[in-house]
């Protein structure tokens, strides 16, 4: 088991734990907890894909970014590492578009963590919170009507 893949093992485990909880637990709150774990697994997966060794937070301090990686992907979707360094590493400071200057070399997308998965997951987390809210609201209604949150007892009363 290689350590770089640790995150991916964890996310698989989280999703399986969540699925197991949703299928086997009889108490509705526990099912909701399982559902949240399941969603968290998916979020961890996205975040893990953005991680990069020795990369900085994606805030450009000095100069516009060369989105070499994004352009690379359109060409050959070999998603990682090579590319930006080969084409632009050599002549920092000679910025044809005139944005950077000699003291502040143009930033390279390679040096930064990919921000897009984080942005996507911000949305997904909001969705998760909303789901939790709706789920708890529904659970309240169930508790009011059935007086229990045990699935077996509810199924019994539904008959």
């Amino acid at each position: 088991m290689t350590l770089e893949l640790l995150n991916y093992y964890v996310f698989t485990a989280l999703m399986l734990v969540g699925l197991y909880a949703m299928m086997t637990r009889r108490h509705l709150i526990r099912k909701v907890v399982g559902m949240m774990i399941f969603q968290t697994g998916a979020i961890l997966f996205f975040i893990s894909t953005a991680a990069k060794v020795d990369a900085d937070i994606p805030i450009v301090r000095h100069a516009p970014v060369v989105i070499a990686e994004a352009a690379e992907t359109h060409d050959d979707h070999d998603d990682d590492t090579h590319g930006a360094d080969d084409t632009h590493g050599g002549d920092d400071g000679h910025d044809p578009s005139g944005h950077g200057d000699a003291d502040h070399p143009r930033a390279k997308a390679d040096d930064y963590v990919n921000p897009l998965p984080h942005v996507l997951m911000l949305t997904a987390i909001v969705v998760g919170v909303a789901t939790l809210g709706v789920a708890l609201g529904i659970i309240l209604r169930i508790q009011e009507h059935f007086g229990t949150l045990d699935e077996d007892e509810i199924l019994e009363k539904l008959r």
Partner: protein
Amino acid sequence: MIAWVSHHAPVLVVLLPLAAALVIPIVALRRPSVAHLIATVFALATAAVSVIALITVVRDGPIHYFVGGWTAVPTGPPSDLTEVVFGIELVIDRVSGFFASVVATMAASTLAWSRLPVGHELPGREGAFYSVACLVLVGLMGMLVTADIFNFYVFLEVSSLSGYALVAAKGGRAAAAAFRYLILGTVGASLYLLGVGYLYVSTGVLNMGLLSEVLHQGSMSPVAIAFIVIGLAVKIGLFPFHSWLPDAYADSAVASGGFLAPIMTKVMVYGLLRFLYTILGDGDFTDGDGALGPAALGPILTWAGAIAVIAGSVVACIRNDFRRLLAWSSIAQLGYIVLGIGLDHPLALAGAILHVMNHALMKGALFYVAGAQLVAGGGRSIDDLRGLGGRLPATTTCLVIAGMSMIGVPPLGGFFSKWYLLRGALEQGRYGIAVVLLVGSVLAAIYVFRIIERACFGCRDDEATDEPPSMLLPLGLVTLGVIAGGLLSKTVVEVVLWRPVP
């Protein structure tokens, strides 16, 4: 004006219902009765914009819209590394325009119809109901117009979350059904999200068009495809992931079931269609030679659909609760649609898309009848329909027409979609599937006649009661739609969907 509307149509169809959803809670605090009016008007406006957009698309080609002016598709040469292409693109093309028109029209008609049923079942909560219903419409329209697979997920969750709330609105059994729906729906949506993650990691893009280009240059991750297809199948309610559907549609308030049943699962079908044909297929499935992306998926979908047709119809035949019968029939009809998608033949695909419209219309009409029965004080069981022909004669007429269309009696809509499916199956040499289609129609005849027999030939001495025009008018219009869907089916397929059909 028209040009402005059609140019901004992709974003208008989302913003209009959103505006209604925001305005209603404020206004309804003081005057709950206005909620119905606002929701209906905004839904009608959405439908009008969708139809205008569809006409524009048929005439001038797809409408592309970049939200906030951020481009989503590279316009310059690939060497231009400074171009930012992270925007979200909205597109209305022939297929999404068609779906949007059907969905928005059905939503508007159901909202217009629902004043009495909502007042009957959810008294005092009109504001909440109509606001949430408009949010469902926001999500559905968003899913139809977006060209970004993550944005699709967001709209999917918008529509699903409000859908759960709409189902739960009645409390009691409905809340239990909504909880089941929520758990399964969230699993489905999370699987879809995971599939999106896999695709993003292997391609680096989220725009559907770009994704299709990049995927065709390399290999497609079967895991991603499996996640997305299973996730959408759960939301469609495709056999064997259908267990949430009957309770959600039958135990909820009749207005909730009537609002969701005709449109919700159809938009999920659209997602599957988009994914299989636009992203994984040849990118343009309106040219009449639709090519299913991974060929191996075809038989799986076809057989899953075939099993759904048979199983759904058989269960519908033994259900005694009217709305539960309709819900199981929905599972069967969705089986037809998915079967058509899986057959991978232009005729079958035309049949599937046509069936989306026809099923939305006839299932809407049948739910309206269930609502009319409820408001008139009748029970839920199909035995309570006895004498309906005497009590509500006009409603019963519509019930018979919609039911006949469900069976597939020419010249009603249901006949033509099944006819296209059958021809597609025969052209592909899939005789087993053709038999399934015919058996499905026979089973549909059984369960529809169980209803019609009671409604028309029960005790006939009942007095005709008042049929409220606010419910009868939408029912009548939708029933006319069922008839028109049959008479105009050739036009719909040839003019709206593809150019030539053999």
